[in-house]
């Protein structure tokens, strides 16, 4: 097990600087499954109409893998990510995280699992506007019970990893889009999650910043061995993943297309 080390601050820029690796606390054997979905169905009932989100979807993601989920709008990519992460319920089928079925967990257990084992990166950053960058990053750690001093130290380290040490006291409104997305990534990684879910992480960014963000995600994936599941429209982003899962009409049409 390798621990993160203290990081010197880096210049304020959208480009990430080299930084020590962040490693999940307990890395399981590389070949075991981090996420598995079996014949999952999900329907949204809006009252007037029923919209099928997932239609008998099955998927396996190995630990340490970076998987891109792609497909046309409305094909169910975000629904898949939400259900896999336990943010949404399913109608039938089975979802296993580290081999444990999500359906058997209570809301409290699922929330706890997210707090301790998962990190999230959203298209629109979704930072809490009233907290500084540093406070946003340390929040998940505080939620999972890390001590205040330790959370503060690790949040600062993680911000350094994403190259934002000198923006630590800034609120989201005072940061550019790329900087906000880095704070989101730092927030997702600070708690050393085993799985990071990213929903269109570059969807709101220009191409140059998108590349920088993907460089950062890929580096962290390689260095830390964390599992990344990235929902994206972008072929460039998809090309950076280990494998692309293509979806159409709520089902996986090309589940196993390794790129590297």
């Amino acid at each position, binding site marked *: 097990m390798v621990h993160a080390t203290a990081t010197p601050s880096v210049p304020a820029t959208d480009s990430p600087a080299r930084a020590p690796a962040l490693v999940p606390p307990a890395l399981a054997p590389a070949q075991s499954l981090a996420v598995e979905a079996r014949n999952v169905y999900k329907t949204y009932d809006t009252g007037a109409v029923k919209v099928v989100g997932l239609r008998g979807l099955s998927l396996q993601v190995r630990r340490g893998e970076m998987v891109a989920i792609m497909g046309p709008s409305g094909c169910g990519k975000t629904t898949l990510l939400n259900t896999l992460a336990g943010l*949404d*319920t399913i109608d039938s089928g089975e979802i296993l995280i580290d081999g444990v079925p999500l359906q058997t967990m209570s809301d409290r257990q699922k929330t706890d699992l*997210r707090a301790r084992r998962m990190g*999230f990166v959203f298209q629109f950053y979704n930072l809490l*506007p*009233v907290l500084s960058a540093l*406070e946003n990053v340390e929040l998940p750690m505080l939620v999972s019970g890390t001590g205040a001093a330790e959370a503060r130290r690790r949040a600062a380290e993680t911000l350094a990893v994403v190259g934002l040490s000198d923006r630590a006291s800034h609120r989201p*409104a005072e940061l550019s889009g790329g900087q906000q997305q880095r704070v989101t990534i730092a927030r997702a990684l600070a708690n050393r999650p085993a799985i990071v879910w990213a929903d269109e992480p570059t969807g709101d960014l220009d191409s140059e910043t998108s590349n920088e963000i993907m460089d950062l995600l890929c580096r962290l994936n390689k260095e830390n061995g964390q599992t990344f599941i990235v929902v994206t429209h972008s072929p460039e982003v998809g090309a950076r993943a280990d494998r692309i899962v293509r979806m159409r009409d709520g089902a996986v049409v090309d589940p196993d297309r390794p790129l590297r």
Partner: protein
Amino acid sequence: MATLFGVSMDIIMGVTLALSLIVIGVVGLLAWRRPILLRLALRNVPRRRAQTALIVLGLMLATLLITAAFGTGDTMTYSMRQAFTASLGNTDLTVQQLNPQIPMDGPPDLNQATPTFAGQELATLQARLGGDARIAGWSGTLQEMTPLIDTTTRQAAGQTMLEGLGPDAQATAGNLTLLTGGPLAVSALRDGEIVLDKAAADKLGAQAGDTVRVVVAGRPQDLRVRAVVLAASPSTQFPVAFVSLSQMQALYHLPGQISTINLALQGDLPARLAAGTALAPQLRRLLGPGFQVDEARQSALTGADQIGNIFTSIFVGTSLFSIAAGVLLIFLVFAMLAAERKSEMGMARAVGTQRGHLTQMFIFEGLAYDLGAAAVGTALGVLVGFAMVGVISGLLGNYGFQLVPHMELRSIVVAYCLGMLVTFFTVAISAARVSRLNIVAAIRDLPDAPRPEQRLRARLTAPFRLLFGEFRPLGCLGALFALAGSLLASGPISGGLGALLLAAGWVGKNGFLFHTGASLTIIAIGLTLRWLLRLGQVRPARRDRIAYSVMGLGLLAYWALPVDTLHHWIGVPAFGAGIEIFFVGGMMMVAGAVWTIIYNSDLLLGLLTFALGRVGRLRPVLKTAVAYPMAATFRTGMAIAMFALIMFVLIVMSVLTQLNAQFDPAKPEATGGYQIQATVPFANPIRDLPAQVAANPALQGQFTAIAGETLLPLQFHQPGEPPPLQPYSEEDLRNNPGLAAGWHLYVARVVDPAFLADNQFKLAVRARGYASDRAVWDAIAKDPTLAVVDSLPVLVGKSTAGLGSTLEFGISGVDPAQPVMDPVSIAWQLPGGPGSPTGHVTVIGVLSQDASFYPGMYLSQALAARIMPGPLPVTNYFFRVRPGTDPAALRRALGSAFLESGLEPVVLADSLRQQQAVGDGLTGLLQGFMMLGLLVGIAALGVISTRAVVERRQQIGVLRAIGYQRGMVAGSFLLESSFVALLGIGIGVVLGLVLSYNLVQFLAKDQPTLQFTPPWLEILGIVVLAYVASLLTTILPARSAASIYPAEALRYI
């Protein structure tokens, strides 16, 4: 209710109705010109029904409070008018003889003998006025206080107003209304019969057919009860009974004598009042100086109106804080609406909508809410007002007042229009404020960047450019408002205005102007500092922090100064503390505290984060709970201010009410050490009561002291004091010409030697040379030119020092806070002008304020003997009971023993407590009324919380995604509301305690026994009630936030 704060309600109705119609007309015109804007605006109304309901609730509160206050005032006016005029029947004018010893103005002292005159005067008057068409009828009546005893039930009514009515009284008294319904003709009364009003019948337990004994000067006469009629007394303080005039004259051995001539006039009420006003001077000329002509109906109506106005003014005055909080709530509601529609508004602006169009849309929508809210507020206000009337009715029940819920259409119109206008203008200002937005920031829902400040020249010319360049009258009006705002917001100009008010207050000895000016000057200093810092390129956040902290702390320091500090430091006039100063003080202190906290919120946040960093798993919840309100400074500041304002006034009221509770009516300082007091009619004195008590087996040995006194109305004047600033009425001066020269009517308490020898009233101030209170009383017993006075004239003298005399009797040169005084010479005279007996007394002691139930100048009987020849009948007896005996039992025994003398004994402690309870009850009602204002704060938190859930839906999704449990989300919302509510409550409590401490210290200067003892339990109760109520409104939004599924929340845009 005819006036409000001295302004005619007719004028107020005309102005408010005209303004309301203008507002509706202008808005209607704008809507007609751009109906699309009206449609867009009105579509927002049903968009979120729950929110619309909350907005209407928030907007209606001001109207509700105003209406409730008016409803109370109208009911009091109406009921008093009914009560006061009921006894008049058809009588409009009365003529009575002026007795130099019995002035007819001021409160009647019915223990005094009534002056009578020959009934021939009536015939003479009728002959001289001939057949004046305005006069409908005449009658002569004879009234006197009399004891009545029902021989069947053995119950007595010691002091009953017995009125003898002649056959001609039918014209003036009209028919009496039987308790069982139907009329009883006055002319049908025969000798040997008596008619009782309900109060008398209740007291006697009498019914028709009973025998009632009337005792006059010890001689009993039995009469048969012919009927019982509805309550007829003007004040209902005493029961009333009627006999025929001839019977009355026989009872009192006053053949041919009457005490009153009554005149009934023709026409409807306005015609009768006008005729009365015209006839009164004519009658005075005909009658000469010995008689007094009273416009009885006009006086009764004026008195009733005054009582109604007092109640309305008190309730409107005390609701000012709540109305101010309601105005803040309206600002808040519209700020929230604007926040909700920020991106829509940005888009609208982007596609070409003018800023004015946005303002108009908000105004249309606001007026729609406003019209509905004012209607709901008025309707609920009537109900609340009548509920309060019910409480007052219960409190005054023992005094026989019958309150009939009543509300004038005029009051309803004024309340509706006032509420509507207050809300509309607040809405209009909010609309102008919220429609000023940065288009890009609005579309992207980003915080607004600070706007570059417009140059003064551009602001000065804007109204003219708009009016003459583009011809936009409304835009010109808006620019004028903006100009006025910017001029006030610039330090030097508001400082100049503040200095002007300061000077005007100082010179005009007006505390309201002075303190407002001082507050404005402090604000101006902060604004000037801000301006200087801007010139010095200090960044906006820092300069605002410095400037507003200076203003906030400055205001807090100024208003926290003990009352009269500036008087002692720099010789500012001693203004005292009135309700208007209380209002300005409260507003300024709360503004100061809120500014200081909001502009230093980061420090508070840091402090709280540091403190809460040790709470473990609760830490993240607390962090977000505090961070959100501290980031939204405007809405947080508004909500805190609302809570603080209401809590502030409630706490001050609680502390002041507690002062009343500090007074123990049973202590010797309050009762003179006597336990029983008994009154006896002036015309029915008891010969040597102490001897009769000693001879009575049931009473002998039961009392350790029996003292007596007679109340005489005298006029007093402190030599060298200027005549009153405020002129007396013509009527007053005609009856008592001495008033113009500075004479004041005040009660003289002529006390007997026993009273001087053993009363235990405490003196607050003694003249130099008297070692003890006892020495003072003993000195008066020996020297009839010496006297003791109660504390009221001394307080009046002190409060008017340097301001000139007032209508009340005041004694200057005595400081009630100092135990020693120099003897003060006071001139006295019998009312009646030149030629009346006159003389001087030297005041050598001032009673403590504990004796406030016994006001008057305490004189010895030896002095009274010089004023009035012959023995003075004692009308008030005081009994000190033997230790270990039951005062209540002795009271009953005394009443029984002196039944036929009309002696009415009361246990002093019970009687004083009852009076105290009425005061406490009314104060409690006022507190309850003010607590309605809490609804404002609670509604504000409800609005904020509901809005927060909508606004932060995605963030709630994020929180759930990163591991916040449902309970943590709900807890975060509840804690956030708690934080705002507790901050507001805390500020209100602290400021309320600070101000009430100062008030108590100020009052204690005159009444050293007063202590600052906050009713902690009651305060805790208020705090808990306010906090729990605020939590209740946020529970639903918090639960709703917690129940949002994370994926659903994240999808929401």
